[in-house]
């Protein structure tokens, strides 16, 4: 039995636990041509330097702004989508529609950005159409000030359908008899949504909202690294891309690691705290179910 655990344990060790220890370079002045024990210890100076680095502050600001915009604009979409699908009374059409909206979740970010670029880019489908009809083109993909809206639109396009699944499950668990008796008591469509559907979904909505708040430091990494060139770092730099560019590209390995570690630690605390709040509110968190 223990033998069966070896391959998995090796994977965890090599690609998770040992690299976690590698984070010590965040407290060192590390260069790739020396070994970690040889590197000079600098204590917390890397972290102090981070907050003196304008680029890092921009990354921090962008991360928080993007997370807030996504929370406000993305979060309600799967709920509304689930209500629409739930109200589709024809099983065949409902199935077809579900097949369509789940699909983008399985496409890679590279593909999603490529599709967006072909549609909305400077020489893309829509701008070609505008130009050929004598109108001005719109720089959807390269305008830094509308970038938060663009990335939120991309997230909605890719994942709103997938995010809907959990709400559909919640809707299916509301007994139909509740609706029926409400209807016979004269409650209309909107009244039923307000008094039965939304209270029935409340636990799931609260839980997901709290978890969303917990992962506020993690906005899609691939999405930003793919578009950073097009809109510029001032709009598209987030904590993860900062870590990549500072470390791998500019060679300040210790600074990159410090940014990554700071984000990881604060992020974990936020997730655990939000999970705790979910428990206190009487909801099931994410790990109570899985570690049972």
């Amino acid at each position, binding site marked *: 039995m223990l033998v069966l655990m070896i391959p998995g344990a090796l994977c965890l060790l090599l690609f998770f636990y040992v690299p976690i220890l590698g984070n010590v370079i965040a407290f060192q002045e590390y260069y790739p041509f020396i070994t970690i024990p040889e590197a000079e210890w600098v204590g917390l100076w890397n972290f102090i330097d981070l907050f003196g680095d304008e680029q890092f502050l921009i990354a921090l600001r962008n991360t928080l702004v993007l997370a807030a915009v996504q929370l406000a604009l993305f979060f309600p979409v799967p709920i509304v989508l689930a209500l629409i699908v739930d109200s589709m*009374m024809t099983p065949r059409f409902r199935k077809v529609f579900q097949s369509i909206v789940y699909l983008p979740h399985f496409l*890679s970010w590279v593909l999603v950005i490529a599709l967006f670029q*072909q549609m909305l880019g400077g020489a893309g489908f829509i701008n070609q159409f505008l130009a050929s009809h004598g109108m001005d083109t719109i720089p959807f993909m390269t305008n830094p000030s509308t970038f938060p809206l663009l990335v939120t639109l991309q997230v909605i*396009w890719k994942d709103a359908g997938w995010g809907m699944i959990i709400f559909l499950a919640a809707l299916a668990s509301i007994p139909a008899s509740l609706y029926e008796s409400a209807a016979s008591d004269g409650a209309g469509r909107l009244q039923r949504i307000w008094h039965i559907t939304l209270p029935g979904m409340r636990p799931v909505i609260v839980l997901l909202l709290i978890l969303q708040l917990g992962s506020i430091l993690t906005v899609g990494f691939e999405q930003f690294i793919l578009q950073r060139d097009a809109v510029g770092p001032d709009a598209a730099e987030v904590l993860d891309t900062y870590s990549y560019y500072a470390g791998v590209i500019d060679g300040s390995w210790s600074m*990159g690691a410090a940014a990554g570690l700071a984000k990881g630690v604060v992020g974990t605390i936020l997730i655990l705290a939000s999970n705790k709040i979910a428990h206190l509110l009487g909801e099931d968190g994410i790990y109570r179910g899985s570690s049972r």
Partner: protein
Amino acid sequence: MSTTTASRPDTAVRPGRLDERAIHRRLWTLIGGRSERPVWMEEPSPALSVLKTLVILAISISILVPMLVVVSTSLASDAEIREAGGYVLFPTEPSFEAYRTIFASPLIFRSLGVSVLVTAVGTLIALFVTITMAYALSRPVLLGKPMLLAIVLTMFFSPGLIPLYLMIKELNMLDSLWSLILPTAFAAFNFIVMRSFFMALPQELLEAARIDGASDFRILWQIVIPLSKAVIAVIGLFYAVAYWNAFFNAMLYVNDQELWPIQLILRSYVIQGTSMTADQLGVQQTAAPQSIKMAVVVVALVPILLVYPFLQKYFSKGVITGAVKG
């Protein structure tokens, strides 16, 4: 549950008038719809129906049209693309010239090979690692609790990309395909789904085999795996999709263009707009650059479309959501 369609009494047909609702219902049935509206539920107002239909159509179009445009343009001729201003919705004379070019190009053909290889080998290794671990931890086992905790922790924290990069470098896996396979060979989420499936298997069966003297390997190979084909299929598909779609690990660990997977080619030539000269492609291009670009998008897209029906069959059955909730 009643599945009949009922009109409300106050809208019942008056003699001598066309029953629009009945006609509407007939048309609906004709195009394949069969409404399951419960009797107590009122028919929506026309305005609401129209609005809902428009929203549903708009969403569907926004998802399907980009893919259609890309596929169509990849099949269109140079002249047609230029005439249409870059994109073609319905090519008049579809040709596969662009695909002939990219399959003849060592650069792109090789990257497809890399992607297929990484996906195939990666999925097999990932399934092996996940199944063995999930089976071991589905039984009461020495060190089971701490191991489980160690796995769950990986869902809350990431070591960060700099230390991971240094680790890959230390393991001499930079510029090697192993760097694309091994770091993502164990996903905690997939493990949890797999383990809860194993735990739901009839334990008497496993006990009986154990009493008959079967080893753990034998029980796993001859009883557990044959009983778990469905969950293994869906987890395998999840891993395969993840391997096919992965690009960042390649961007980080692989400098050598000969080892690039298709997603990185897509990034470089479509998103960043690196021009595709005959020199880079390694073949005299006979198709328009625009349709070659679109063809690259399509070859990255098609494998996902091919496995999508299977994926959907399983996850819509609740394999995933059910297991996660439990």
